[in-house]
């Protein structure tokens, strides 16, 4: 029973959904204030979600209805299951085993696959192009993300997020070595959440709404919710891997600290959404392979050297 | 306009002289109404050589636009061509309305194609030498044979329009 409660209510669906929408509000409000605008009221994301959920959803004729409806559900469940392995405010995540780092990263890749399949199954020209673009973009940012997240694990020589958090919690000075990895994973998170410099699949001025062109009503609401939750889970993962200090103090203080870290990452994301123009798909890939990946190698190199120095 | 509107300046006179020299029958047909404007009325048959002369010798290499006129029995076509220093030559020739056939000028001015398509749609001119192309500006389901810019064409008001007029 407790597991059901955990899964559905507290650190699970309801809590994450609420946090996702709250973070979306903060993101849109900060984005507006950065552009010298007033910005939406606090209930805007909730109102959007409810309005979309009430609307009629149209399924294109040629689209395969089962797959068309299943994609949003996969997207949400993947992100929520990923959140169980991440140590949010107490040192141990809900579930943790040696190797849950790899599982979390794969779970966070599933939403992008669902965008691709969703776009492909809605058989409309715009969503097909959007789907292909989201896949090409996936290859560009996924490799640097993996390398950037694996390097702290190397130093802590464990594959489990919780042990890693405990290791860094024990001796924080090693955190400074991971700062390059932190920057790289921020860029990769931008790509994963399809925020402006990399929102090429959903470029509304070129291909209407990219992968989500044919989606409407509850399905679109679920897709949008999955992106919000993914933003929260992504920044929680980054916070757990790169800023794991102060995990031990449980209770309200720990929760407040966790919220601060997530808010910091969310504001970095919305700041980058303000100051960059959207790149073309070829420029994005070139940027990722020419700048982001070399730095990821550099980060792994540093971790290996440090590991070598520590071992003696 | 800054200079007096009354007389044209020397440059326009020089062009007028050259035109009349080259085509004596144009003597009373070319008038320079104001600085930088020359209007010429030519016969349909020698329009081509006047145009070529204007482009090659007088340097009118830029086409502003082509205007179609409906003067009752004939259709008039005015070609507005200009050059770097701003002087604009407007050559007009008339064609009987029964068979309004003109030949294209796209070999001298590539952008003329869209102006000629407009003449086809709105005035019912038939342009020789203009290839197939996208229709401009009327919609595809526009009834054939109806040319809105002709004087005898009246706009048909649909009942809904009449109702909330």
């Amino acid at each position, binding site marked *: 029973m407790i597991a059901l409660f955990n899964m559905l209510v507290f650190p699970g669906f309801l809590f994450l959904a609420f946090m996702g929408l709250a973070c979306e509000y903060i993101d849109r409000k900060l984005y507006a204030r950065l552009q010298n605008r007033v910005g939406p009221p606090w209930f805007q994301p909730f109102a959007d979600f409810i309005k979309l959920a009430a609307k009629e959803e149209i399924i294109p004729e040629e689209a395969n209805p089962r797959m068309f409806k299943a994609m949003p559900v996969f997207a949400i469940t993947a992100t929520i299951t990923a959140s169980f392995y991440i140590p949010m405010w107490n040192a141990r995540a809900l579930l943790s085993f040696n190797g849950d780092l790899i599982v979390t990263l794969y779970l966070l890749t599933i939403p992008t696959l669902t965008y691709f399949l969703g776009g492909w199954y809605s058989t409309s020209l715009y969503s097909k192009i959007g789907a292909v673009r989201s896949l090409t973009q996936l290859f560009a940012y996924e490799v640097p993300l993996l390398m950037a997240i694996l390097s702290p694990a190397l130093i802590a020589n464990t594959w489990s997020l919780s042990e890693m958090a405990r290791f860094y919690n024990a001796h924080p000075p090693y955190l400074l070595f991971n700062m390059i990895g932190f920057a790289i994973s921020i860029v990769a998170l931008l790509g994963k959440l399809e925020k402006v410099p990399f929102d090429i699949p959903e470029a509304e001025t070129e291909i209407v709404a990219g992968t989500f062109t044919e989606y409407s009503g509850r399905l679109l609401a679920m897709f949008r919710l999955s992106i919000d939750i993914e933003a929260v889970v992504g920044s929680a993962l980054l916070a757990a891997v790169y800023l794991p200090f102060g995990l031990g103090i449980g209770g309200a203080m720990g929760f407040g600290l966790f919220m601060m870290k997530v808010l910091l990452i969310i504001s970095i994301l919305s700041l980058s959404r303000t100051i960059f123009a959207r790149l073309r798909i070829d420029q994005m890939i070139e940027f990722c392979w020419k700048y982001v990946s070399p730095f990821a190698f550099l980060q792994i190199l540093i971790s290996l050297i440090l590991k070598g120095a520590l071992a003696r | 306009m800054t200079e007096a509107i009354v007389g044209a300046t020397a440059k326009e006179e020089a062009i007028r002289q050259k035109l009349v020299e080259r085509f004596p029958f144009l003597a009373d047909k070319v008038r320079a109404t104001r600085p930088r404007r020359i*209007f010429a009325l030519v016969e349909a048959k020698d329009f081509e050589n006047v145009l070529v002369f204007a482009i090659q010798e007088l340097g009118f290499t830029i086409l502003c636009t082509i205007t179609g006129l409906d003067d009752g029995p004939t259709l008039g076509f005015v070609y507005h061509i200009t050059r770097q220093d701003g002087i604009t030559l407007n050559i007009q020739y008339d064609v009987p309305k029964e068979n309004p056939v003109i030949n294209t000028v796209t070999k001298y001015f590539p952008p003329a194609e869209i102006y000629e398509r407009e003449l086809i749609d709105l005035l019912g001119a038939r342009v020789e030498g203009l290839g197939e192309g996208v229709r401009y500006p009327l919609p595809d389901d526009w009834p054939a044979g109806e040319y809105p810019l002709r004087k005898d064409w009246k706009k048909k008001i649909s009942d809904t329009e009449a109702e909330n007029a």
Partner: protein
Amino acid sequence: MRKVVIPIGPQHPALKEPESFNVTLSGERIMAFSARLGYNHRGIEKACEERTYLQDVYLIERICGICSHTHSTCFVQAVEEIAALEVPRRALYIRTVIGELERIHSHLLWLGVAGHEVGFDTLLMYTWRDREVVMDILADVTGNRVNYGMNTIGGVRRDLDAAHIKSMLKAVDTLEDRTKYYIQVAREERTLIERLSKVGTLTHEDAVKLGAVGPTARASGVDRDTRRDDPYAAYGELDFKVVTDDHNDVYGRTLVRMGELMESYKIIRQAIKNMPDGPIAIKSPRRIPAGEALSRYEAPRGEDVHYVKANGTDRPERVKVRAPTLANLQTVEKMLEDGQLADLPIVIAAIDPCFSCTDRSIVVRRSGVRSKNMIRWEDLRSRGIEWYRENRGIDFAKLNRKLSDRMR
């Protein structure tokens, strides 16, 4: 990769006005491009023949929302030329000032739209916030933010008093350093430069051959500007530089437009400094003597040409309008050659298309056939209420009745 044809428009988020393009793609590369125009054709030229000259001034002014002063000045100049009216010099100066204010707000608007097309919405928000400064001045001086109604045959309808001039000069100062900031951003923001340079290239020869006009031509090194070549209004007595550039691409057009903004500020200051006193309009006869005139005007998008033919009555015989976008559209096909799909919106936006100018027609509704299923407002609402009751079990009917009672 097999070819796929993407229809863009007539309704598309990137295009503010209805026009339809068919783009043949292989992968992301554009192979062929064809444009179908005329969706916004409203028959303004035919309508002009049914109205008097004075009524035509207001009809012609509504050809385009952004460059309304352009069309009305161009038309009024042609009519004044036919009627040989001696327009007072103060009116010419006021027309020039309003024309330059319109160029400022049109270029700032374009800068924002260009930013939006490449996904840089911050530029849109900031440029349109600064544009409000010039819109307020226009609303204060002419009585409306757009469709200023400043021109009448024989002069202008409103005078500039000292207060207007003071607020105008102050606005020009604030706008000048805002534009300097945008020029600096355009020169330094890497992602913006990356998206704008080497996109939609148009070589000098093509620009001349295809008859490009305005900033699109000047960005390819074509040194043509109607304000200097064929001066009208007060431009003969003002000195200003024609901004050209040789980038031959969208980035060049951005720099040209921003250079023109700086020139406009200079022109406005000059025009205000030596604006003569005197009357602002003279009485114009209702019947214009027979004659014809061609008037050219440098609109923010390029050279705008009006040809007016009068037959002695109080209605024009023929009014021909050739908007700058019609000339620039021929070059879009050349610019898009082996471009990318992602560049299509910015290349089309780079010529700052104004399809309302280009088409000028009414879509004539066929009587009978199509008008039967014209959905009226009420049945649309009742159909919506119906749907919600069946599918969602929520009954809005009571709410709707309460709402409509309150409306009555």
